[in-house]
Structures are given as C-alpha cells and as structure tokens.
C-alpha cells in the first residue's frame, strides 16, 4: 500500500508540480539552481553527473556481468585473460548498492526542492549553508552519530551476508573456482543438500546431533548455573565472594585456552591417559575418530565448564531482584522448600530469562569452538567432510573454509539462519515473557 501511495505521489509531482520541482525530478539539482541555491544545486548536479559517468564507464557493465557471471573463460595457452566471476559478483553487488544509494539521494533531492519551494512561496528567507550545517549537527545529531557505525555494519556485516546469499544460488566452489566460470544454478545447492545422497545423509545426521547437542547443553548449562546460583544464595553460605571467585575464574579464562587445555588433558600423552596406563589399562583415544559417544560426552562437559559460570552470573543477577515477601508468605502457608522452588523461583527465573535462554540456545546450536578445538578436521566415513561430533557450523567451516565448497556452504548457512530465526520467533511468541508482560511486575 505504502509503495503504491508513493508511486502516486511521484506521478503527482511530475504532472502537477512547478517547473523547478519537475526539473529536479528529471535531473538532480537543477530545480535548486532555479531557486538560486547555487551550492546545493551544484552539489546535486555533481552527484548526478558522477552517477551518469559511473553508469556509462562501469556500472552498466558490472550489472550485465552480474547477470552473466562472465562469458570468456581464461586460457593460459591462448593467453586469454578471461572473466573472474567472483569479482564480477562483487562489482555487480556494489553497482546495485550504488544505485540504491543514488535513488535515496534522489528522493532527498526532490524533498529538498519541495521544501525550498514552500519557503519561497510563504515568502520566508532560505537558510544559509552555515545555519544548515548547524541544524543538521544539532537536530539530526542521531543521523550524524550513527553514520559511521551504520556504514561499518553495512560494509562488514550486511554486504558479506548479501554476498553469501548470492553465492548460495551459484555453483561456486569445489572445482569451480576462478579462473573457471561460475554460473547461477537457482536452488541447486539447496536441492543437493536435501536430495544428493551423501550430502543429504550428512546434513540430516548432523542436524539431528546438532539439535540434541543444543537442547542437552542448554539444559545442562542453564540448570547448572541456576543451581549454583541458588546454592551460593543460601543463607548458610559464608564468604560468598570467595566461592563465587572460582566460577568467575573459569569464566575469565579465554575460551580457546580452556578448550585446548582440555584437549591436552584427554590426549594420548595427557594426564588422564597416564593414570589409565599406569593402572594397567590401555590408553583411550577419547577424542579419536572412532571415539563416538565418549567425545560427545566430553564435549558436553567441557562446554558446561565454560558456560555454567555465565548462566550462574545471570541467575544471580535475577535472583537478587526477587521479592523475599513471596517466600515468607509461602513459608507461612507451609510450602516446602521444593514447592517454593517449583512454584515461585523457577517460573520467575524462566520468565525473566526467556530472551537469554533463546540466545543461549542459539549460541549452543552454533557453538563452533568446542568441537573445532577438541577434534577439528576429522572426516568420517558416511559423512561428507564431517565427523559425528561436528555441528552444522563446523560442517559449514569444513565445507567453505577448508574445502572451498562455497556454494553449498552458503546454502547451509542460510538453512541455519532459517532454523534459528524460526525457532527464536516461535519460542518468543509462545513464551510467558511475551504473553503476559505484567505478571511479575
């Protein structure tokens, strides 16, 4: 609806507005010149000229290149330089962004000329440049302040994500990397993931384990942290700061150090195997390729070691906001400790932490570090470039970074995105925090 209204608006401007406005709508800045706004007029005309120049010299070519992704394949024997499809993709993406930016500027230009016209018609003075800059810096402070952060996020977060979305619809990767030409294959990668036997099997096996892992580790970390916080909150515990220091210590050690240290601990030469062998047993390959369930359990425990302190801190913060009156009332009514926990503490904590629970779950679902460090780079039979402990995010890494399967990797990342966002949306909408905001206020 909105877009339609805007379209009508533009038509309206073109047909019924004054000459300067029409001029500006056709060529940026000309309307401003008619109203003797020399500086802004020349600026807009300059932008317009630059845009036309860009389109003629490379813009149009870039967009055509984006559509074809190159037509000439390089041939060193014939000395043909050929097209680089990846560069063409990037340049095409850039061209689209430049065009969008230009359109936004164009709308601003029309708005500007309309504003000037209004001032002229009502006989007011048009503010000078100096005043204008002051106005922008003060009244539009938010725009000035956010310009740099937004530009940063755009360049290093949004564009890469768009780029990957584009890649997921191409056959980029495997043998097909520049100088070979890349092609658009539509949903080919997604079809491969859902139907090509080996990739499909790997995908569903990993997805299954990934869900089990995310549920189990979130459950373990969440209730472990809550339990620890409740334990430390007990009245009989003296020197709380001292006891709390140990989990905080674990929390403070950088994660990669913890993970590497645990890998050493369970390695063949590590202390655990030393005691096993000195007791007469055979050394156990805890993290070997055939470790199976052992490696999974170690992964869960190590992840708990790393994450329980975080959820403990969180639960401590929330418990300190709790109203003691509720417990007193419950005690007088003769409720047992267990019942108090079950009926008062738990609902409150879960209510207050639902958003965090979602982010923790997604964090665990996409937990790259644990199995990358404990047993990264293992490829098992029956899996396509993955092992039985790998999560989707590890598989993604194996596919796209280690083995250059960029197209399939990008498709896997989109599938992960779809799974996590649908999950969080559904949980959030069904959660108490969303349904009854005021229950615990």
């Amino acid at each position, binding site marked *: 609806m909105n877009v339609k209204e805007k379209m009508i608006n533009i038509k309206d401007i073109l047909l019924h507005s004054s000459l300067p406005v029409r001029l500006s709508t056709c060529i940026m800045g000309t309307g401003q010149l008619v109203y003797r706004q020399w500086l802004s007029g020349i600026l807009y005309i300059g932008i317009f000229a630059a845009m036309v120049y860009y389109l003629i010299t490379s813009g149009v070519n870039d967009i055509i290149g984006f559509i074809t992704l190159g037509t000439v394949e390089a041939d060193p024997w014939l000395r043909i330089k050929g097209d680089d499809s*990846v*560069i063409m993709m990037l340049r095409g993406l850039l061209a689209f962004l430049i065009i969008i930016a230009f359109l936004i500027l164009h709308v601003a230009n029309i708005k500007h000329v309309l504003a000037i016209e209004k001032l002229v018609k009502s006989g007011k003075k048009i503010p000078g440049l100096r005043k204008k800059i*002051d106005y922008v*810096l*003060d009244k539009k*402070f*938010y725009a000035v*302040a956010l310009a*740099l*952060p*937004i530009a*940063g*996020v755009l360049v*290093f*977060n949004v564009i*890469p994500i768009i*780029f*990957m979305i584009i890649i997921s619809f191409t056959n980029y990767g495997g043998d097909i990397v520049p100088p070979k030409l890349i092609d658009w294959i539509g949903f080919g990668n997604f079809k491969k993931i859902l139907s090509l036997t080996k990739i499909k099997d790997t995908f569903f096996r990993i997805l299954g384990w990934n869900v089990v892992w995310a549920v189990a580790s979130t459950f373990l970390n969440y209730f472990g942290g809550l339990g620890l916080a409740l*334990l430390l909150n007990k009245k*009989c*515990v003296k020197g709380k700061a001292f*006891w709390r220091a140990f989990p*905080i*210590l*674990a*929390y*403070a*050690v950088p*994660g*990669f*150090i913890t993970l*590497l*240290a645990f890998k*050493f*601990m369970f*390695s063949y*030469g590590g*202390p655990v195997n*030393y*005691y096993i062998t000195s007791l007469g047993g055979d050394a156990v390959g805890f993290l070997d390729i055939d470790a199976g369930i052992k490696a999974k359990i170690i992964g869960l425990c190590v992840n708990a*070691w790393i994450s329980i*302190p975080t959820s403990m*801190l*969180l639960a*401590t*913060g*929330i418990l300190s906001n709790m109203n003691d009156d509720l417990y007193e009332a419950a005690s007088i009514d003769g409720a047992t400790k267990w019942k108090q926990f079950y009926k008062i503490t738990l609902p409150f904590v879960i209510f207050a*932490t639902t958003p*965090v629970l979602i982010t923790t779950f997604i964090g665990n679902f*996409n937990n*790259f*570090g644990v199995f990358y460090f404990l047993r990264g780079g293992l490829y098992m039979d029956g899996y396509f470039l993955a092992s039985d402990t790998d999560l989707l995010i590890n598989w993604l890494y194996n596919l796209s*970074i280690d083995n250059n399967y960029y197209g399939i990797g*990008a498709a896997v*990342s*989109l599938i*992960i*995105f779809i799974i*996590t966002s649908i999950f969080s949306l559904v949980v959030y909408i069904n959660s108490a*925090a969303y349904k009854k905001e005021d229950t615990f206020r």
Partner: protein
Amino acid sequence: MKKNKMSTSKKIDTVVTYVILIAVCFIFFFPVLWLILSSFSKSGSIYDIGGFFPKSYSFDGYHKLFTDTEMYNYPNWLKNTLFVAVGSSFLGTIMVILTAYTISRFEFKSRKMLMKSTLVLSMFPSFMGMTAVYLMMVNFGLINKLWSLILIYSAGAPMGYLVQKGYFDTISGSIYEAARIDGANNITIFRKMTLPLSKPILVYTALTSFAWPWSDFILPNLLLKKKDMWTVAVGLMHLGETEFTRFAAGSIFIAVPIVILYFALSRFLIQGVSSGAVKQ
C-alpha cells in the same frame, strides 16, 4: 525437642551445601591449577610430565617462550595481538558508545527498524559473514594485514550495543531536557554531560572490546596466513603435545591480564550478562 530436630536437619543441610560447594569449586579450579603448574614444569613435552603434576619445577617454559623464538615467535605474536586489541578497543568503543547513546536518547523514524535489523542480522551464523569477508579480502588482496582485523572488529562492534544502551536508558531524560532549555545543542550535551556521566560504561566497553580480539581465534586464523602475522591465539593453536609446557606458559601469560580485568570488572559482569534479559 522439635527445635533440636530442626537444627540437626539444618546442620546436615549446611554440611551438604558446603560439600557440594567445595566439589564445584574444585571442578572449576583444578584445570586452571593444572595448567599453571604445567607451565612451570621442567620438561617441555606432555609425555614427560606424567600425570597432572610435574615432577620438577622451573621457569624454563617462560624463559623459552621469550628467547627461543626460532620456530614459535611468541613475543611477535604478543605484539600483533596487542596492536589489534588496542586498535579495536579504541575504535570499537567509539562506535558502540555512539550507537548506544543515539538509540537510547533519540526518537527518530528509523529507530525501531534499526533495532530490529540488528536482531535479524545477529540471527545469521557468524561464519556466514566471515566466509564472505574472507573471500572479499582474498579477492582484494587484503589478507595478512593486521589493520584489516581492527577494521572488522570495530565495524562489527555496534551490533553489541545493548548493554551500553541499557546503561544510557538509566540516565534520566530530564537533565537533557533542562540542558536543552538552557540552549545547549546536542553536541555540547554529548560532550559536556553524557561523556562524564558514562565513565563506567566507557571503561567497561573499552575493556570488553579489548578482551574480544585478545582471545579471538576464528578471524585471525582465517585472515592471517603468514607466520609472522599470527596472534597469540593462532600461535598457541599450532603447539603440539611435545610443546605442552610452552603452550601452558603462553596461555597463562595471556590469560592473567584478562582474568585480572574480569575480577576488576566483576560488578559489571552480572549487569552485562543479564542485559539480554532487559526488555527494550
């Protein structure tokens, strides 16, 4: 009689509580202790240590770390890490504070849209963007550059603005209104009022945005392929079982500043962790 029974059950409860507490603290402390002791082990290989505790102790591990730099140039790794961490901390703090302050303080048309889009962006797996950044950097020949890491870290920093926004939300709007009535413009307000008021959150932001590159391994591992460009995290990843003491010493050396930092900041920690629980 009844009172006596109550106190016995209470005593048992206290004892059980403490037993669990000691067990938990042991679990958290033991691996750290093991690593600390191993860093002082006289033998370098994990096979020679035998069990959890080294047979003889020395400072050799630390000494070798800084002198035996032929294969593993730890001082150089440390220098690179420091450069990246300080640079990203400086730039990242500016970006986050500007973002958080603006979103907390001003009502503008695209505000809700911005907040929602950061939420959606954070749903994409982090690797997705990183693979693309890697591809782009390779294609434009920007690989093996430390400053490109700084750029990526600080450009991504505004995405985590929620803690800081929560802090600015607690500053009452009325003082701003008063200043506006007195004729102060928004830049003056930010400089003269907001910045002095936000010292604690500035410190917190600077330190967390220092700690992140200090202990990150994914991005440097992806973008720094040359050995003399490695950061500590990448370097330590390449140490095998025979270099275990070196690994332990290097880890302790890099972990100590961070641990001290976290303890100094512990009053912010709870606030920081629970910020996700605060509704917008």
